[in-house]
């Protein structure tokens, strides 16, 4: 890849890293993972704010870091636009001067007008002379974005840029970033621990854990087809079970697995030979609740049933825990709209029927040593 950014970094300590990423111009790559997974560390390494053991970073054909050749370009000479988690605005300078500081390589005469233009682009016209303390959280975030863009960066790095604002402001800033990114010609790397945020804004999702990049891919694909049990757990998939592969039905594009003595149809996944043990996962969106009053045709697809052992109202949705094949085995989790639960009289103790959609059943290697709980 001649353009965009390419990163390969590895070190054992003090913060372990083993990361390989690429991001093309105009694309948004979201780095997700729990706190302490190395997201910010990786971002700081890209900016050159942190020395890393070995690896390389190339941006638009420029080499910023190459441990073998001894190249390590200073932060101030890497063209990065960095939006810090708490924005790190210069507290004594006005919004305008915060932005102007990032364009010192332009002729002094045009700096102010350019800075005003960039501030207008993030809808801050009229607030140019305010110091950061006189701006709201959302406005401060926009100054930080404007300052990062004013640098005309080769890569835009956003470190949890929405974590310090209230919910309503966050929703507005999402829309603004989504609009803004259409005009951006550089790769954008977004650090977040919020999967919904990643799903909404990113073209690519990278799951990071203990400094290792576990999986990179299109967000929906990563969240429904994780590469390992570890990724499944990190992206919040709770329905993780063991099964044996029975065979493949290529004509119907199905793989048949046996789970707790029952045959289930899954999307065709020939990578797993008949007879092998696998771990399988199903996103909650692929579990369909059978109507209790009126059975329908779709119920023939992988039907399972069991009593509801927990029924928890969470705002507009109800989180159900269903015991399938006995109360001592790992249960199924699903979420349904509260009105559906009401209409079907679903409460704890009630027996319900579910369909596990074959399209959603995703197989993974079984021998994952890092599995904390042993699914069955």
């Amino acid at each position: 890849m001649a353009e965009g950014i390419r990163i390969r970094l590895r070190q054992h300590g003090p913060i372990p890293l083993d990361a390989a990423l690429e991001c093309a111009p105009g694309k948004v790559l979201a780095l997700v993972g729990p706190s302490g997974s190395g997201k910010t560390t990786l971002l700081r390494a890209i900016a050159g704010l942190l020395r890393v053991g070995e690896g390389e970073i190339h941006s638009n054909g420029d080499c910023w870091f190459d441990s073998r050749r001894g190249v390590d370009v200073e932060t101030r000479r890497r063209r990065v636009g960095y939006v810090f988690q708490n924005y790190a605005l210069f507290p004594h300078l006005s919004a305008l001067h915060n932005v102007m500081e990032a364009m010192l390589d332009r002729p002094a005469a045009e700096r102010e007008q350019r800075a005003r233009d960039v501030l207008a682009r993030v809808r801050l016209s009229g607030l140019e002379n305010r110091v950061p303390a006189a701006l709201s959280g959302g406005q401060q975030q926009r100054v930080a974005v404007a300052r990062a863009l004013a640098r005309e960066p080769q890569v835009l790095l956003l470190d949890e840029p929405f974590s310090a604002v209230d919910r309503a402001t966050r929703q507005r800033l999402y829309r603004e970033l989504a609009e803004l990114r259409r005009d951006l010609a550089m790769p954008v790397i977004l650090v977040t621990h919020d999967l919904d945020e990643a799903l909404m804004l990113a073209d690519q999702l990278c799951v990071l854990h203990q400094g290792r990049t576990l999986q990179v891919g299109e967000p929906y694909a990563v969240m429904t087809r994780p590469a390992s049990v570890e990724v499944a757990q990190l992206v919040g998939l709770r329905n993780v079970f063991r099964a044996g592969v029975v065979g493949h039905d290529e004509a119907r594009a199905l793989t048949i697995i046996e789970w707790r003595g029952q045959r289930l149809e899954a999307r065709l996944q020939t990578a797993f030979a008949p007879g092998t043990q696998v771990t399988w996962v199903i996103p909650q969106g692929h579990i369909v609740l059978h109507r209790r009053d009126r059975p329908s045709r779709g119920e023939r697809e992988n039907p399972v049933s069991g009593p509801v052992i927990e029924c928890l109202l969470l705002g507009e949705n109800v989180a159900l825990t269903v015991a399938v094949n006995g109360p001592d085995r790992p249960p199924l989790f699903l979420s349904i709209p509260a009105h559906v639960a009401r209409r079907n009289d679903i409460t704890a103790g009630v027996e319900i029927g579910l369909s596990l959609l074959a399209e959603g059943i995703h197989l993974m290697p079984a021998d994952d040593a890092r599995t904390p709980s042993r699914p069955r």
Partner: protein
Amino acid sequence: MDWSALTLSLKLAAWTVLILLPLGIWAGHALAAHHFRGKAWVEALLALPLVLPPTVLGYYLLVAMGGASPVGQFYESLFGKPLVFSFEGLLLASVIFNIPFAIQPMQRGFEAIAPEVRDAAACCGLSRWRTLWRIELPLAWPGILSAVVLTFAHTLGEFGVVLMVGGSIPGETKTVAIAIYDRVQAFDTAGAGVMSAVLLLISLVAIGAAYFTNARSRTRRHG
């Protein structure tokens, strides 16, 4: 009122501040920005003049600058006059005993700057000098101002070290603090009273100005 003593004290204080200002900015910045092995010992050494009795410090300075010491001999071979009991010797002693008053507030001032702000400056492409001039110095300004005022006021008031190193030579090393002591010894309480009042006023104005400026810059930043 001993005007020459007052002038001498003000001159000594001004020179001390002038020398310690760049030195303190450099050392305070370095101590705030870097962590190294033995840093605590360096800080302890710099803070030593705070806890040492002035006479002890004065004694060592006297020995170190005297005609028998390499420093004293070097100075005498260069300028043809002894370093001790001269204004220059007094200034050197003053710089040394003011080190903690200059460096500590500045170090605290630089430490109060969030590390991300420095990182942001680097990401904006600012050079080290530009970062210092445009970002760090304005943000550490309250600490720097405190250091200047403390050093100035402390020099005006220092007695023990000045007496040990400078003696009490009128116009050369007799500062206002020593002049006050002299007046009291001579039972001229009126003269001592006037000079004490002048010293009190100068110190009050300096400290007051520093607090006022700091309070104003704080409200401006958080306004």
